[in-house]
């Protein structure tokens, strides 16, 4: 079983301008974001097992640095779209634990009114365009957000995340060609956690020695490969791509090496079959992005063990509150099944009132 390798050397990119500019509070905020994501998911897992949450639950635990680090760089006109492993990105863009937890519980107070579930979070008002369940399906949409930004003359970009298994979907290939051909300000971020479900990268993909992102050369597109354990490396690498999008309106394909501690989804019974216990252990101990950042900040004198415990405790409390909120919230009424299908119907316009739109019940 080919197991992913990761560089461990502590990052030398601390002094990259974008990192040098970080205040102590900024650095703690980055830690807080990662910890909040983890506590949120640990709490959701508890409630999944207790039966309050249905369907799939794809946990982001182990990958928090990718969403926290890259999204921390975004400005007013920068946007985010991702796949179904979407809790981390949602919290990173500023969605509340409450709306996210309530969505998992299928409640009306959820970010998607309980209609989308874990895989389909949305918050356009926070520049967050989902949460998409079909592997690779979000990649043309991400190009579309970028196209719209350019069309409207806004200096921004779209960060479009996908997994290492998603790179073999046809839609992604088409999106890459369009992005380079039409100079779209989109940054594709492959979160390479080494596996697509139980299939290692080596069993799913033929790719150049330099890695998955090097497939970008097929389109003459810029690319980079980033060690995802380090917030500094992520911020330094992603910033270059964002600048390329902002100043040249050119796309970039990034590969960020990371690892998921849990199974593909909570339903994944084989999480420790296709990966050795040792491999998982190694990544949990040597490559946990929270531990890594924590150590960095302690080293820098920005953080203390006590402070860390406090942040952790706070996040845990917030997650419990969110669960309580979700628990207490109402489910949608049966009639609401038919809301949010057609904009024209929801807004009771003439178009919405003309002709029959629904054909049962």
């Amino acid at each position, binding site marked *: 079983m080919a197991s992913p390798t990761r560089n461990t050397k502590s990052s030398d990119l601390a002094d990259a301008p974008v990192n040098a500019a970080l205040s102590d509070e900024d650095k703690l905020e980055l830690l807080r974001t990662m910890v909040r994501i983890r506590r949120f998911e640990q709490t959701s897992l508890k409630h999944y097992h207790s039966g309050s949450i249905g369907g799939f639950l794809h946990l982001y635990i182990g990958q928090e640095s990718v969403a926290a680090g890259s999204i921390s760089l975004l400005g007013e006109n920068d946007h985010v779209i991702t796949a179904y492993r979407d809790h981390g990105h949602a919290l990173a863009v500023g969605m509340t634990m409450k709306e996210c937890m309530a969505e998992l519980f299928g409640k009306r107070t959820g970010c998607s009114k309980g209609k989308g579930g874990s895989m389909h979070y949305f918050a356009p008002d926070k520049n967050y365009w989902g949460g998409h369940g*079909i592997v690779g399906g979000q990649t*043309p949409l991400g190009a579309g957000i970028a196209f719209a930004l350019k069309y409207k003359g806004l200096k921004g970009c779209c960060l479009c995340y996908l997994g290492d298994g998603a790179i073999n979907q046809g839609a992604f290939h088409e999106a890459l*060609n369009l992005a380079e051909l039409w100079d779209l300000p989109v940054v594709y971020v492959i979160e390479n956690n080494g596996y697509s479900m139980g299939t290692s990268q080596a069993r799913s993909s033929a790719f150049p020695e330099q890695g998955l992102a090097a497939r970008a050369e097929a389109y003459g597109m810029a690319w980079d490969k980033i060690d995802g354990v380090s917030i500094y490396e992520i911020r330094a690498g992603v910033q270059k791509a964002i600048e390329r999008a902002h100043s040249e309106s050119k796309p970039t394909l990034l590969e960020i090496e990371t690892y998921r501690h849990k199974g593909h989804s909570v339903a994944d019974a084989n999480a420790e079959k296709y990966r050795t216990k040792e491999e998982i252990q190694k990544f949990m101990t040597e490559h946990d992005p929270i531990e890594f950042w924590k150590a960095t900040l302690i080293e820098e004198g920005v953080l203390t063990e006590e402070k860390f415990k406090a942040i952790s405790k706070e996040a845990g409390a917030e997650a419990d509150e969110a669960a309580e909120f979700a628990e207490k919230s109402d489910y949608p009424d049966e009639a609401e099944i038919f809301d949010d299908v057609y904009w024209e119907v929801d807004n009771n316009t003439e178009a919405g009132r003309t002709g029959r739109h629904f054909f049962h019940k």
Partner: protein
Amino acid sequence: MPREISYRKALREGLDEELARDENVFIIGEEVAEYNGAYKVTEGLWKKWGDKRVIDAPISEAGFIGMGIGASMFGLRPVMELMFFSFAYVAFDQMMNNASSCRYMSGGRLNVPIVVRGPANGGTNVGATHSHTPENIFANMPGLKVVSPSDAYDAKGLIKSAIRDNDPVYFMESTLLYGNVGEVPSNDELEEGELVIPIGKAKVKRQGTDISLIAHGGAAVTALAAADLLEEKHGIHAEVLDLRSIRPLDDEAIMETVRKTHRAIYIEENKPFCGIGAQVSSMIMEQAFDDLDAPVLRIASADAPAIYSPPLEKMQLPTAEEIVERALSIC
């Protein structure tokens, strides 16, 4: 005497007027710009509106339609041309999942005001791969709208409504109708100043009392020809109802004509199994059972992949003679 223009020109006028009305409207498709459109629907629009508004795409339907869906969520109003609607099948996931369900899965926090248009018809000897008529397939999915105009007047009025609609509209045309000429008043002849036809309203294209011929798209033209024959040769007065829009569906107009004639045939160029005819005839049974003097009949294309051989393909599609024959069987 009123102005007459082709179905093709009517579409072009509608597109041109909407490009003028709203700067967020733009057109993307294969050969729509410099080439002027494979079927010349967009002729002259690139010259007039330039590279930003009329864009030639690579042969990547999933890519550029998916891109359009994303752009429409962001407030743009893309009009995507499929050179043939058959090519929707390589973009199917984008069209069936992302366009139809992102609004729903977001709890209504976004909408997808995209138009995907192009010819969806057989009868041009291009074989099975190029002759799909997926009205029923797309109309099956809630969240989507399907429109299919049969004449120049409807084509212009409906494409304008489709572009203004805030939900995804799949607009299915016919290469066999592009050249058909019909009355389309110029805007200065209209007090409203423009021609806009609401989506979801069927239209009685011919009054009758004895039997209702209900159809959409090219089949509506065939139905009108059949109605002439029924009148001339058999003294039967057929009413022809053109649905124009498949979803939303004007079921009131359908029940109205059936209550009037007590007999109905649905005609479509689609394949029969789970076609629009099946949906309409079962709705008639559910809503007007006691008004029926005979079972509702369905006429569709012969149930095989589209055949190339020119004379055979003619036989494969519904003909006026066939409609007459079936009508006589229940009149």
